[in-house]
């Protein structure tokens, strides 16, 4: 008897839930197209103390306003507070003059930066860059029993869209000065970076942090970079890594300084100390992040076969002549074709979820400069078309500015190209 009652109760609960579910589905509002933006995962691979955290703080500080480029980045309130705190500690030459403390393993987390640009006077998100902040020892040290953070880190590295190898400029300086710690530390860095980067399918680049501490190597910055480049490429493993990745795209060596020239010096005991009353003037900190998306798209194009490249160029050409809604529809069709599917697979993106977002982004990035007059601009557009048109143009402007940043640095420092090819 009890069993029957129990069955009836369970059945009534299930029927109630089913009825609710059906009602909820019926009540769903009109179908709307939600605007999604793509997310790119970035991992900076660097040992503890190599300057990852200060680079992050300085990079945010440099890109938080559209100064010198059409885009800017935003983050959550908590992240902004943390980044500002690091930046102010770094810039503070009064009080103790201490550098920010190192990142603990428990502080491992992503900072999600939304790249935005203004469309008709309002800020509009274009893409998200997820940047992993972690304790550098996770990359090199055996972990305590029961710790899972290292496993998490390597899982993030495996799914990264771009890897940035961080080489400590202070150790390079020690190497050049003949200090025994220099070559030892460089070897340790390469031992940590190479196994990961050799197997990576994501585009890689290298960053020399604390570039300001290398000012004494040579007065000319380009010559200085060449000295560092020669030092690095004298390592067989490093050279083979560059050759491997350089076959499909440009591998860059980007000198950066989170604090800028003259802010810090090395005292006789070897400690890096702040110069009293000096000001922070970061150098090239915006370049590594700006190079991520153009670098990824460039790598995809160079890995495609001739037929796919031809199909993409045809689609890009068609896109320049189409209206916004027409281009939108055409893109859906292209996503189903072989070339479209190949690009989406290389981006590791499910076409159904982000078909237009990422693929459209990719195709827009293959077009010319954003101020090129296109046939479709002369046409009369309705409101929806104008909106899509504006977003596409904004994406192209952002991509163009990102590439321009890298190009400008390469113009000044041609030795920053470790390999040739690409854009």
């Amino acid at each position, binding site marked *: 008897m009890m069993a029957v009652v129990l069955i*009836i*109760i369970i059945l*009534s*609960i299930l029927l*109630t839930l089913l009825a609710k579910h059906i009602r909820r589905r019926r009540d769903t509002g009109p179908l709307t197209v939600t605007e999604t933006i793509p997310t790119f995962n970035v991992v900076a691979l660097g040992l*503890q*103390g*190599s300057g990852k955290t200060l680079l992050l703080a300085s990079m945010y500080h440099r890109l938080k306003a559209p100064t010198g480029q059409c885009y800017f980045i935003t983050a959550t309130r908590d992240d902004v507070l943390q980044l500002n*705190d690091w930046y102010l500690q770094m810039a503070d030459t009064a009080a*103790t003059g*201490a*550098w*920010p*403390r*190192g990142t*603990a*393993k*428990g*502080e491992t987390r992503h900072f999600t930066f939304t790249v935005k640009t203004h469309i008709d006077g309002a800020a509009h998100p274009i893409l998200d860059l997820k940047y992993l902040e972690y*304790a*550098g*020892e*996770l990359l*090199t*040290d055996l*972990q*305590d*029993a*029961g*710790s*899972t*953070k290292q496993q998490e880190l390597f899982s993030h590295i495996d799914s990264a869209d771009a890897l940035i190898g961080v080489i400590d400029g*202070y150790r390079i300086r020690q190497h050049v000065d003949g200090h025994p*710690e220099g070559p030892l530390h460089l070897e340790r860095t390469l031992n940590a970076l190479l196994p990961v980067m050799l197997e990576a399918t994501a585009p890689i680049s290298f960053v020399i942090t604390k570039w300001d501490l290398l000012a004494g190597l040579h007065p000319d910055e380009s010559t200085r970079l060449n000295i560092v480049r020669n030092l690095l490429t004298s390592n067989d493993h490093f050279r083979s890594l560059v050759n491997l990745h350089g076959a499909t795209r440009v591998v860059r060596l980007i000198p950066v300084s989170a604090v800028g020239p003259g802010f810090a010096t090395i005292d006789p005991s070897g*400690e*890096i*100390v702040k110069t009293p009353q000096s000001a922070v003037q970061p150098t090239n900190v915006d370049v590594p992040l700006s190079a991520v998306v153009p670098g990824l798209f460039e790598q995809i194009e160079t890995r495609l076969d001739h037929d796919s490249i031809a199909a993409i160029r045809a689609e890009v050409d068609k896109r320049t002549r189409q209206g916004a809604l027409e281009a939108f529809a055409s893109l859906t069709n292209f996503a189903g074709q072989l070339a479209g599917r190949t690009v989406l697979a290389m981006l590791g993106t499910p076409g159904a979820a982000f078909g237009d977002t990422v693929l459209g982004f990719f195709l827009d990035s293959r077009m010319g400069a954003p101020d090129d007059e296109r046939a479709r601009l002369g046409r009369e557009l309705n409101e929806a078309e104008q909106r899509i048109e504006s977003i596409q143009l904004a994406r192209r402007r952002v991509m163009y500015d990102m590439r321009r940043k890298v190009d400008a640095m390469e113009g000044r420092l041609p030795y920053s190209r470790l390999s040739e090819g690409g854009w």
Partner: protein
Amino acid sequence: MSGYAWPFLVARGRRLGYRTILAPGFLISAGEHGVLDDTVVPDSQEDRAAVVETETPSGRRISIVHATHIVTAADVAEPGTPPAERAPRDTHSRPLQLIYGFVYVGGGAGPPGSDDLRICRDLSLAAYRRFLADEEAFRVESGHGFALRSAFNGGVTEPEESAQSSMPGIEDFETPDPGRHTHTGVILLAGAVVLIGVVILAMLRLTATPEPIVPCPSVSAVASKTDPKKLAPAQPAQSKPTLKPTTPCAPQPPREKPQPK
């Protein structure tokens, strides 16, 4: 009611990165002391306590009460020698910091007393000095359990073994959790009320007399009623048209239009 706890320390050395320096013996023997290193985060304010409840990989529920301390020159001075002029730094010129505190088994942590934290900081500093003396050779130390000075909810109230033991047999007894029983009771009560409600509702529905179904007026019919041009002069007495049916109705499937021949 006082509890029983074990000190711990997570810190970075001059050369080596963050690691667990001091941990409860029962975590070390279970190969789970890495959970401390994974969980604790430094605080921007020194010696302010924070409590984190977590589970070890084997599912043991623990509370970690932790605080941050920036290492001073006096902290690391050799006994009998004056402290250095400047606070110690790591090889990357960054200040050294300790994340110290105590662990107890179970949840429901309240604010810890300053005495308890002070004891842990002293024990941690002693362990840290041993670590700095030879970072590479150092192995995690097992911390001795101690009775908490402050009133502290939860935790193990009676040590199974004396404080001299580094592993006081925590694995053998179950952790009491008074909150869990209360929650379970509330959930069961709520479930029973919901069930009774559903059964009553179902019975009411089953016993209710169904009302006769009146078909809704068709769209065309309603439209013709509302369109004054379509109102025939032969129907002057017709009441004011309304879109709402006066009696409950059920929607009818649309009829097929007659096909033109």
